[in-house]
């Protein structure tokens, strides 16, 4: 692995909110202008730092949700109850307000459009964010790498990027798994991702797919174990987890 993903010092840059889109009642996509942004890979994340008037600082890591467009950078932030950073970013934080951002960070959980292997993305809840960046990077690069997305969420109301995911894209198969409440009219019962789900909706192990799994810790543990049990090479299973109170 060449040391190319992050070169030189990672400087804090001033970022200003250029616009936002609410994905769900508790999740907001923030679009920033970050002058001098060096670009990033799909799957990478950034650190965001907020400073209060008295100098108090708080910083958190957030996944980038789309490829960069020049100096434009997008994140999606899930509001966490009591989360000092996420509650500000999904609430009073307004267009034109500054924060500081540095990155991109993490060259391991990253998809490169030059990689021809088929791709399996498995998202749990807000774990969809870096995986959506990969779907968008595929489109931006104009490649036909076959993608499958398995997206586990509690209820239909928690679906991020709903309009974009509902529009069919050739070569990107999307399977939804609802754990608490199904969409109206969908037969069956709520369930969790299991061996059968990934066996049916994923790639056969012999295809040598690149697997990216992102979600809460327990979800990622379960999915990664199933993929290993189905015969996927553990070195081709890349995971990103968020813990109980990471906001």
């Amino acid at each position, binding site marked *: 692995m060449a040391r190319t993903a992050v070169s030189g*010092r990672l400087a804090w840059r001033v970022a200003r909110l250029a616009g936002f889109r609410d994905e769900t009642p508790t999740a907001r996509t923030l679009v920033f202008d970050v002058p001098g942004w060096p670009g990033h890979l799909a799957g990478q994340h950034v650190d965001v730092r907020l400073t209060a008037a008295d100098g108090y600082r708080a*910083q958190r890591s957030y996944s980038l949700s789309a490829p960069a467009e020049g100096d434009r950078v997008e994140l999606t932030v899930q509001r966490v109850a009591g989360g000092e950073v996420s509650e500000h970013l999904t609430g009073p934080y307004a267009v034109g307000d*500054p*924060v500081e951002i540095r990155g991109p*960070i993490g060259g*391991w959980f990253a998809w490169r459009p030059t990689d021809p292997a088929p791709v399996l993305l498995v998202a749990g809840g807000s774990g969809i964010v870096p995986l959506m960046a990969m779907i968008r990077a595929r489109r931006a690069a104009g490649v036909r790498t076959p993608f499958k997305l398995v997206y586990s969420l509690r209820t239909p109301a928690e679906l991020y990027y709903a309009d974009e995911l509902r529009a069919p894209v050739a070569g990107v198969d999307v399977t939804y798994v609802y754990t608490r409440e199904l969409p109206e009219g969908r037969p069956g019962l709520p369930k969790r991702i299991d061996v059968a789900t990934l066996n049916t909706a994923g790639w056969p192990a012999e295809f040598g797919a690149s697997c990216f799994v992102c979600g809460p810790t327990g979800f990622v543990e379960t999915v990664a174990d199933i993929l290993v049990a189905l015969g996927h090479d*553990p070195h081709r299973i890349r995971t990103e987890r968020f813990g109980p109170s990471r906001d």
Partner: protein
Amino acid sequence: MGVVTPGFQGRARSGNPRLPPGQYLEEGFPVLSAGPTPRVRTETWEFTVTTESGEKHTWNWAELMALPSEKPTVDIHCVTQWSKLDTRWRGVPVDTLVGGLGTEADYVMVHSYGGYTTNLPLADLLDGQAWIAYEYGGKPLTPEHGGPARLLVPHLYFWKSAKWVRGLELKIRDEPGFWENVGYHDYGDPWREQRYQGD
């Protein structure tokens, strides 16, 4: 002071002197790892120290258990900004495993089951600063937290405390490990906020 974000208050200022800059207190124990959790059986577990001349010293699980252990209570600091205070561990001091070897190495590459590696100076593993830990909170260390045994180096960011540890490779020259190769710091001192290369 940097750029003030209008209206940002933040939570109550803790002023806790045990929290390094940029860290917040965590009561749970989040997991950070790059891939599936390896299931390592103690029946086949081995731990090998390799010196710079290629000399190997290997312990199996029973041999590790037979060594004198310590029960450190330490604060840990993850690069993803959480810190956890007063965590209780049991393990064998690295001094016990490396102390008697003739070596001129200044650096160590730590190797794990599953292929993970991390680099750090040898001096940071000695003098009671690091353990091969196999109990957490009075119980055997679970696989998702690095069991059966992980390195514990609490004074550095916690990615240096490699899970599922299987060996130490003593080296004359420092070389980047897994996270270090993708931009994380070669040393990782939380009190100097050495998160990424160049910090």
